[in-house]
């Protein structure tokens, strides 16, 4: 090091090239790394998007030519749209039920000391830790043994079950970071318990609940393994794609997948813009 500094003056040209590379790397390593990560993340999506324009005849595995037909007629392939509608309905209902139940459990766990509290805390983690295959097959066995016909409702019960865990964990984290003195301050300022909850606790926990709901929806919408065990004739979008893979996935599936990606992206961007606006205003 000491040599570097003393000779640095004498021979700046010789050292500068290596230094420049190092300095450039120092300044840009993060960006390069980020670029690589993004390519890695987005390449499959780009591929899906590209093949939604494939003029595929029977199978969408090889590039056959460019067409807008798939986008103009996304319900062209049999059952595609029905499965999407099924998935959306299921997802919304599961989100609603799991979010409400999970939030209530989270409040109970954080706010109250009761017998079996720590056990509950532990049991809540089980569905997250258990392999989905095991969960799915066990549920199937349960449903068969108590003679519940498989279909929409069995899938829903299964989804609510594992979504609740994620909701509880998410809401609990938010609640635990909430200062109980805020509620006390509200009550000191003449707010009843209910008012303190509605005006102070709920707004402050709401972001956590919203995040939990989004998580529940995407988990439900995404799930294939557990669904496949317990759905009987009922078809969700992931199941549709899986089943049709044997015959060849229709390009309409790519259209729907791409569309979903862009809708999600748009929602995130809109959310960010609103957030920035609100902070400024």
């Amino acid at each position, binding site marked *: 090091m000491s040599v570097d500094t003393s000779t640095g003056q004498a021979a700046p040209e010789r050292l500068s090239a290596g230094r420049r590379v190092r300095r450039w790397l120092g300044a840009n390593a993060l960006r390069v790394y980020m670029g690589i990560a993004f390519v890695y993340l987005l390449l499959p999506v780009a591929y899906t998007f590209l093949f939604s324009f494939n003029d595929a005849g029977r199978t969408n595995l090889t590039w056959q030519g460019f067409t807008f037909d798939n986008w103009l007629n996304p319900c062209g392939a049999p059952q595609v749209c029905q499965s999407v509608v099924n998935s959306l309905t299921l997802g919304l209902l599961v989100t609603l039920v799991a979010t409400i139940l999970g939030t209530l459990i989270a409040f109970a766990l954080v706010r109250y000391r009761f017998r079996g509290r720590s056990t509950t805390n532990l049991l809540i983690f089980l569905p997250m830790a258990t392999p989905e295959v095991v969960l799915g097959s066990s549920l199937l066995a349960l449903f068969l043994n108590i003679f519940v016909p498989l279909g929409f409702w069995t899938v829903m019960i299964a989804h609510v079950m594992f979504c609740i865990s994620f909701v509880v964990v998410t809401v609990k984290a938010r609640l635990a970071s909430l200062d109980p003195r805020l509620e006390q*301050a*509200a009550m*000191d300022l*003449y707010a009843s318990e209910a008012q303190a909850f509605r005006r*102070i606790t709920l707004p402050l926990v709401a972001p956590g609940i919203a995040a939990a709901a989004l998580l529940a929806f995407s988990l439900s919408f995404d799930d294939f393994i557990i669904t496949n065990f317990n759905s009987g004739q009922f078809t969700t979008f992931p199941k549709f794609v899986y089943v049709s893979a044997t015959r060849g996935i229709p390009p309409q599936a790519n259209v729907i997948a791409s569309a979903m990606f862009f809708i999600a992206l748009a929602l995130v961007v809109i959310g960010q813009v609103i957030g920035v606006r609100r902070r400024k205003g």
Partner: protein
Amino acid sequence: MARATDVTKAQGDLYLERLTKSFGDFVAVDDLSLTVPQGSFFALLGPSGCGKTTTLRMVAGLEDPTAGRIKIGEADITELKPFRRPVNTVFQNYALFPHMDIYENVAFGLRRRGIKDVKTQVMEALELIELAQVAKRKPAQLSGGQQQRVALARAIVNRPAVLLLDEPLGALDLKLRRQMQLELKRIQTEVGLTFIHVTHDQEEAMTMADTVAVMNKGVIEQLGAPTDLYESPKTAFVANFLGQSNLFPAAVLEVDGEDIVLEDSDGRYRMPMNRVAPSVSPTRGGRVLVGVRPEKIHIERLAESDATPADGNYVDGTVRSSSFMGVSTQYEVATAGGEIISVFAQNLSARDLLSEGDPVRLTWAPRHGFVLNGSEDMNAGVEAVTAAAG
């Protein structure tokens, strides 16, 4: 609009009767009784962890007392929910609502009670704390001192019968602190609210309060007007916690009419009986602590006054150190008997300054000393003051 909460209209003096609060085995507030007259400014002073906040929380209804009653006038509010009590709190950690702007924070109490002209009152309160310009900001966008003032405004705007202030000025700089002290005092006298003001700052307590209670380990050591507390401390803790005191052990020699005569290795001291704390039993040979404030002691060079002073107590010693502090000079004097006594001498003339090693005589008027129970720890409250200052 949400329906208004019916807050009790209770008015009158605040009574805490034999109030106790335990957390498990730990007794945070121990059998505490006190009366705060309506419209008075009451300061609760004490070291960290002595139970000040816990006491306030019980008055506010945020903590259930383990035993005891709380009353405002005739009304027993012990069982009342916090939102039905005519009591507001300025929280030690502010507890501002992070998702509401400053205006809404201050308006919160008014809205809950269904008050009509929220806007005028809120803006008035914000003017008072000089923060009207930040009404639209969120609490996180304010400095600590500004947040503290908002917490103050949020409580004061409700004009409660009793206002609890838990170190409401702790985060302010000296100038703002003085200013807010005056404001607080003004509001309190103008509106006639009862203030209970918790503070670490003894100066603040003494300048603002009608009555000061010194609290230690869950009990009130002494309660009274600031001058009474300062001039006649009843315990070593109070003597050390409020200002500075010289305390040194002595033994009772006799009670001579109105006076008590004490003795230690440096000599004899005579003090009026009314300067003796009630916990002292004035029997011959009884151990006591003699106390005298540093500024009450007169110090002079020994050579100039060889005659024994007729009236007054005196001790001879040598100056061990002196520190010049502008208005006064602080001397540490070592007595023959091995005590270290500190003295504040007014700087009348630079020529009078004494230096290290000078033989000196310390004298003080009998009515300026005080006598405490000898079984007490001489240093009680000293660490507490250092901790509070640090």
